[in-house]
Structures are given as structure tokens and as C-alpha cells.
């Protein structure tokens, strides 16, 4: 049993705050009742109300005053409504503020278009100086929160709604630049590159069906981390399929394509359409064409989907 990302965030921050009196927790009316930080440290918890821009600029002032504010609101309101504040406070000023953004991608499902955010990587990756993370599972989320608290550097951390995947194992304190999941993989195959909860789920599903495919999981997707990741990826493989719950523009796939000239990079993403219908997270993803079938389609030039009969000689794979 693992915790969803936003629950893991609240729990980990509450733990860290026991030993770090400079930690503050700010919410913009979407933290829910019974927030563990509010219960444990009511004098360091601030629900500022529905005021995302103010919350982030205010957090910059708190950081300059010697505190370590962690602020949270849904991804569309953090990355888009408060984008200018992110640029000024986390980017230009370099304030030690951590933004935790649940409801990323279309994880809001039936909540609808305003509650979806398929643009946050593009916005945040364009702001130098901000570490951008998309943790997969409870342990990665906890590790990234600890990293943000330890370094005091600006962080943007996206997560989904209630999904609770199990993190991939790694050694060391922080999640690695590339977490290789390639036991049993064969050289010369196409490398899956996963980002975030949905991207990683899809890559893991495909790799279960085809263990010969290598898999590289990325937790950090800001430009400096991607540059290091690209170098590491290029040392091992020539073809990549990047899977992410984001639009193609400004996403990790487009970034890696630029960083890997001469290599083949394909993107499996949420496309350019607006999600307009209800349904579960998975149903909205299906409508946008981000699912396992799409990943197999992207792999089709190199890998036949499971259950596909061998192609007749001279036929198409």
C-alpha cells in the first residue's frame, strides 16, 4: 500500500518540519480539511485562500526572511495562473520556495478542462533555476520533498490526483538523473523513456509485455537535468520513445529531441486537443490518445505489439 503523491507530500513535509522550524506550509484553499501539517504545526500553516499569485510572491518574502515555504495548489493554478509569480520569485529572485502541484495532466478527470494542466513542463522548463520534478510514487515524492528542504533551492513538483503507484527502486539519497529499468533488456532495442505517473505506468506495462525493451525513468525534467539525462541516454541507445502526460510543445520529448541530435526520438504525449469530456483519468487519457495502444503504435516500426502474428515475408511489420 503506497500513498498518492499529494498525500505523501503532506506527510513527508510534516515529518521534516519536526526537525526544521523554518519549514512553512501554505495552501490556497485546496489542501483539504485535516491537513496533517496544520494539525501538527498550526502556527506554521497558512491557508491563504484562493490567492495563488499572492501565495507564491508572499512565499518569496517569507523565504527572504529566512523561512522555507512549501506552497501547494492545483497544477493549472500554480503553473499558469501564477506563472508570472513563478518567474519572478522562483526564477529571477531564486527564492527558496517549493511549489507542489497536484492534479497535473488530466488527472482531474471529470473535473474538466479548467482543472487539467498539460502545459506545466513547458512553462516551468522555460524558467531557469527551478528544479522541476514529476515523482513516480510515494518514495520518489518523499525523496524530492526532502531534496527541496535540504537544498533550499526553488522546486516545482507535479503530481496527479489519487493514483498511488509504487516507486521504482534506486540507490542513494535523491532519485537519479536516469533511473535505469533495463534488467533483461537487449542492446539495440528502442529505449522507453518515462516521465511522471502516467508515462511511467505505460512504459512499465509495455516492458512487462516486452522485457527486452530497456526503460529509462526520469524524475527531474528541468533543462539541466535533461541535459545530463540526454548524455547518459546517448551512451546506451540510439532510439527513444518518450512517454509523458503533457502536450508535445515544451514537453520532455521535444527537449530530448533537441538534446539528442542524430538519435531518433519519438514522443507519446497528450497531443494538442483540449479535453472537453468527463470520465475517469484513464478515460480522458484515452480520449486524448495517450494510452498503451499509442505507445505500441509508436514502437511499431521497431516492435510488433504482443499477440501480433509474425508478418508474412515481404509484408509490413
Amino acid at each position, binding site marked *: 500500500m503506497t500513498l498518492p503523491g499529494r498525500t505523501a507530500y503532506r506527510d513527508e513535509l510534516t515529518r521534516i518540519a519536526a526537525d526544521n522550524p523554518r519549514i512553512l506550509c501554505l495552501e490556497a484553499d485546496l489542501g483539504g480539511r485535516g491537513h496533517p501539517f496544520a494539525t501538527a504545526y498550526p502556527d506554521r500553516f*497558512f491557508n*491563504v485562500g484562493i*490567492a495563488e*499569485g499572492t501565495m507564491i*510572491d508572499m512565499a518569496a*518574502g*517569507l523565504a527572504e*526572511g529566512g*523561512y522555507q515555504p512549501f506552497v501547494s495548489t492545483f497544477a493549472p493554478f500554480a503553473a499558469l495562473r501564477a506563472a508570472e509569480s513563478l518567474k*519572478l520569485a522562483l526564477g529571477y529572485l531564486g527564492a527558496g520556495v517549493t511549489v507542489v502541484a497536484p492534479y497535473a495532466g488530466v488527472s482531474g478527470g471529470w473535473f474538466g478542462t479548467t482543472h487539467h494542466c498539460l502545459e506545466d513542463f513547458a512553462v516551468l522548463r522555460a524558467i531557469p533555476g527551478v528544479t522541476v520534478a514529476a515523482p513516480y510514487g510515494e518514495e520518489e515524492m518523499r525523496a524530492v520533498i526532502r531534496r527541496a528542504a535540504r537544498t533550499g533551492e526553488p522546486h516545482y513538483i507535479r503530481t496527479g490526483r489519487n493514483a498511488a503507484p509504487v516507486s521504482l527502486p534506486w540507490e542513494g539519497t535523491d532519485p537519479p538523473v536516469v533511473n535505469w529499468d533495463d534488467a533483461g533488456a537487449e542492446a539495440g532495442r528502442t529505449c522507453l523513456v518515462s516521465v511522471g505517473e502516467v508515462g511511467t505506468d505505460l512504459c512499465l506495462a509495455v516492458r512487462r509485455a516486452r522485457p527486452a525493451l530497456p526503460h529509462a525513468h526520469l524524475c527531474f525534467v528541468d533543462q539541466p537535468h535533461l541535459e545530463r539525462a540526454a548524455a547518459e541516454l546517448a551512451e546506451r541507445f540510439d532510439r527513444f520513445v518518450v512517454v509523458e502526460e503533457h502536450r508535445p510543445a515544451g514537453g520532455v520529448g521535444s527537449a530530448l529531441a533537441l538534446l539528442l541530435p542524430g538519435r531518433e526520438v519519438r514522443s507519446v504525449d497528450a497531443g494538442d486537443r483540449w479535453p472537453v469530456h468527463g470520465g475517469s483519468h484513464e478515460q480522458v487519457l484515452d480520449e486524448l490518445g495517450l494510452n498503451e495502444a499509442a505507445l505500441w503504435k509508436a514502437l511499431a516500426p521497431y516492435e510488433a505489439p504482443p499477440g501480433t502474428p509474425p508478418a508474412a515475408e515481404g509484408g509490413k511489420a
Partner: protein
Amino acid sequence: MTTSTQAGRPGLVLAPFPATTPPAIAAFSPLRERALAARRMVIDMAATPTGCHLGGSLSAMDILIAALDRTATDADSEVVLSKGHAAAGLYAAMYVTGILGEHPVPHYGAPTHHFTGHPGPSVEGVRFPTGSLGHGAPYALGWALSRRLAGTPGLGIAVLGDGELQEGLVWETCQVAAAQRVGNLIVVVDRNGGQNDGLVADISPEPRLAERFDAFGFEVRQVDGHDVDALRDLFEPDRSDRDRPLAIIADTVKGKGLRPVEGKAASHYVSIDARRAAAWKEIVR
């Protein structure tokens, strides 16, 4: 408290705006002398190749001099110029206050130098990048809250323009500040009646401004924004025991101190030559 000659007006009627006249016999005031020196520097910055936001720099000057004088000797207080287009005024005020070590005039707007037309934190003493309006207020709110949490008596002071009050972020911040009872936050409105495209009263009037802040839960003071000593007194008290933030509505004159441009909306951004700068520095007051 000084009552402004513009107090009680419904909106602002500024054209033509009467040039103000200094008292016949003005007592010596170090802060006024400081403000005069800074005004001359702003004129010099208007004579650089880039020109500068002259009108708003001069209107805010006495506010800045008074606020910076408080913070120059109080490390627990912080001034942020939220109306960042008045950067020339800020640089000059910081220099004459001793906060800024480098003279801004020779470098203002110049390549490879950081005295840009809107201030950023790479400049010594500048706290927050401003110029996209509205952000200085929440930053100051955060700073003020940090002092309250630390148990120290510092202030967070944000200097805003009246045109800037059209930004929703300002009122979002007022809501939060009042709700959190951050009594050591001071929001100063440099009410000069002008904005980029003309008069505030013509573009988006702001009636009953004092009542607005009062309704948000602020203490409100309405003052002559050019009475630098009175302003200084407002910044003096320890507000750590207050639970209502303070709004100072400072009535000012755009281009204050420079009769040829006083009260003129066109003084918003000015580029002049060296001869005119020399002449203006002779008459500025």
C-alpha cells in the same frame, strides 16, 4: 497627520495640475535635502540615452526617501518598490540613503550594467524584481509575516502606484494580509493620478480608495505624499503588536519638484538632452 490638498476628491482631476509651492520658510530637513539630491539624479537619468520614467520617479521620491531611511538602519524591515517603472527614483533614493554604493547615473540603462529601467535583485539593495505590477505587495506581505514569525519588530513596506491598484493581485494581497492579520505590513499608494496612457481618472477611476482599504480591514492614513518628515513618522512605530495592516494613501504630484512637468501625464516617460537636464537641475526643488 497632514491632510492632502487632494483629499476627498471623487477620483482624480489632475489636468491641469497646480504646481505646488514649498513653504516660504522651510525648516532644514535632512530627508528633504536627500530627496532633492535624488531628484537631481533622476533628471540626469532622464538625460541618458534611454531616458527614464521621470514623472513617477519624482512623485514617489519623498515616499521612498522616508521608507528607505527607516529600513537603512533596520535590517528587519524591507522596502519594495512595487511600481517598478520608477526604478530611476529607487536607484537615486537608495544611493543618497547610502544603501546603494554605486552611483547609478553613469550606468543607467547602459549595456552590460544592471541599472535597468525596471529593478531586479542583481542591484544591491533591490529586494524583488518589479515592473510587472502588483507583485511587490505580496512580497512585502511575506516579508512582514516572516518578521512576525521570527518575533522581531520589522516592517514590510510596499510602494505602489495608484495605476497599479488596477491589478487584481493587489486586492488579492489585501484580502490575505487582512485575513492573516499581518499588522506590520505597510502598503503605500503613490497617488499621483497618472498612468502610462493618461490619467487614472480617465482610464479606470478609483473612487473611495480609503474606504476600500478600510473595508479590507486595513488601518488607513491619507497624507501629503511630499511631506517626507510626516511620512518618516508613519514608518517609525513598531507595529509588531498590530493586527491590521496599514495603508498609506499618499497624495502626490506626478513630476513633483520640477515645475515644467508637474502634474502632466506626459511626464510619465521622459528623454531629455544634457542642456535641459542642467537647466532642470537648477530649478528642481
